């Protein structure tokens, strides 16, 4: 097996993510074609036979996610990817994986919905990714890249976090990031060692039997499991929050955006600053755990939040919870595969700051 050296390449987001996964020591990938993420499956079916690991095109997303369950339970470093309708099909399996505490990587290259929707980019699956998606009280660790470089880097971060917390981690990205080409620097292969965990079902050699399950018939036991999960999510919230800020020190209006719109908003902040408007930006990188504290702190000293999303307003609810009434939270979104432009964001900023502030 030839280990790949670190190198710089010009690549599509989807392919960069797949290449990163191979370099991160992926043992197995199971997936089903769906636009705009099929390049991931295609890249794996081309590369994995020449390098290392298992790749299998499953008969459906339902089968894929349950293959991921089996392989993760057997101790492998494993992933699947899909786009919105396929991700919806996987939700039961994801709930089982979260309940059984199996580490794995899920990638959702989001497209416009609801229904069959469109193959154009969207952020309409924020709720599904961040609030659970499937049945029961569980959380995914959710990372939102905003460049092709991060499509690569977050694969490593996601595997690390998933294995550290025995929890499924998701990369929530969109059709534009999946399809666009940028320069990307890959780390050397083999930098993320992986040991088969002692709880894995690898055959009961020299130990008691291992079993993977999410079934607990006694309510006391099931509550105990829930409390354990909630405690774990709390630890994740305390330790793994990631975000970026831009020009927030003297900001009076702060934009909040994740993924691709964060880049658009950075441009909008620059345009606003040229006009003398004190605008800034917070970009949540982890959507769960959500960067509540920075937003809560800011809410006490700024005049407005403006949340920009490619959906009808989903993350805005979390910003409102963080602001907790301390400052107004505005929202502007585009849907159905439409991408918001910096000028549109600027227009929205101007509209907001021209409004008279109501005095109580």
């Amino acid at each position: 097996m030839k280990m790949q050296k670190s190198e710089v390449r010009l690549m599509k987001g989807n392919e960069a993510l797949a290449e990163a996964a191979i370099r991160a020591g992926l043992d197995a990938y199971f997936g089903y074609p769906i636009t705009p993420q099929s390049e991931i499956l295609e890249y794996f079916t081309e590369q994995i036979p020449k390098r290392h690991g298992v790749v299998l095109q499953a008969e459906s997303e339902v089968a894929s996610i349950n293959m991921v369950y089996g392989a993760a339970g057997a101790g492998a470093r494993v992933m699947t990817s899909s786009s919105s309708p396929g991700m919806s099909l996987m939700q039961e399996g994801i709930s089982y994986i979260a309940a059984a505490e199996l580490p794995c990587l899920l990638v959702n290259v989001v497209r416009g919905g609801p229904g069959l929707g469109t193959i154009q980019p969207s952020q309409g699956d924020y709720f599904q990714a961040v609030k659970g998606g499937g049945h029961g009280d569980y959380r995914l660790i959710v990372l939102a890249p905003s460049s092709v470089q991060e499509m690569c880097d977050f694969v490593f971060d996601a595997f690390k976090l998933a294995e550290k917390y025995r929890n499924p981690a998701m990369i929530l990205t969109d059709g534009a990031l999946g399809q666009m080409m940028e320069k990307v620097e890959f780390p050397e292969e083999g930098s993320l060692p992986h040991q088969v965990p002692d709880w894995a079902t690898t055959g009961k050699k020299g130990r008691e039997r291992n079993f993977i399950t999410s079934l607990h018939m006694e309510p006391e036991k099931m509550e105990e499991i829930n409390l354990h999960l909630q405690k774990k999510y709390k630890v994740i919230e305390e330790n793994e929050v990631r975000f970026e800020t831009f020009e927030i020190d003297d900001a009076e209006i702060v934009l909040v955006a994740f993924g691709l719109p964060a880049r658009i908003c950075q441009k909008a902040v620059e345009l606003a600053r040229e006009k003398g408007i004190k605008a800034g930006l917070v970009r949540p990188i982890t959507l769960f755990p959500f960067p509540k504290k920075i937003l809560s702190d800011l809410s006490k000293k700024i005049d407005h939040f403006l949340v920009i999303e490619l959906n009808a307003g989903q993350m805005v609810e979390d910003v409102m919870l963080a602001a907790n009434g301390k400052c107004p939270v505005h929202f502007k979104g585009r849907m159905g595969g439409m991408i918001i432009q910096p000028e549109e964001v600027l227009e929205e900023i101007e509209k907001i700051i021209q409004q008279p502030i109501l005095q109580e």
Partner: protein
Amino acid sequence: MSQEILLEDMQCVYQKPATLTDDYMHYCPGCGHAVAHKILMEVVQEMGIQEDVIGVAPVGCSVFAYNYMNIDMQEAAHGRASAVATGIKRVLPEKYVFSYQGDGDLAAIGTAETIHTINRGENILMVFINNGIYGMTGGQMAPTSLFGQITSTSPYGRDVEHNGYPLKITELIAHLPGAFYVTRQAVHTPNTVRKFKKALRNAFEFQKLKKGTCFIEVVSNCPSGWKMTPKETLTYIEEKMLPEYPLGDLKVPAQNNI
């Protein structure tokens, strides 16, 4: 007097295999699942593969199989046991992997996984317990329920015009080139138990060859769901189930293929 003395005087001629745990099985008296579990684990013991076998339990009455089988196991979502088994076998190709599923699990909600697992020729064993009913959820109609069979969701009897035909999934999958060994067995008499055991042994031996999926249907019973005494179910199996689901091999590997 004390039992100990009596035991000391006796010779042990039979005991449960060490591959079964000491947990009490939760199955209803007379249920075929219990016999199938025991025979399966006897074969694992006799072949000395306890440390190399990984089982997948379904959602159905046998959901707790992992409590009874003293081997590494995973509990799958309803219908997905063969996909889970695929995931395990693909990353641990040298281990023995089996799935254990009911008729609702394997032949209704999991039909796509069943067909595609076998069509890929996954090198696993699929054990299929056909009791013609949804035991776990309280006796609803299964895809394998017989013509006219009364269940809690076919209270006037299974009607072909309304509910279609009993699904002979075993006949269906036997046609797939990925199926290496397909057989229909039962566990309701000493003789059928012996044959089932032989089939299991064959299937595990075949798995080493990596030539495709082995599939064993077990025509079983469900005294609670059928609303019969265990003894009555034996007659029902003979008179009603076996004419619809005749026992025997549906596909055996050609001698030169072994």
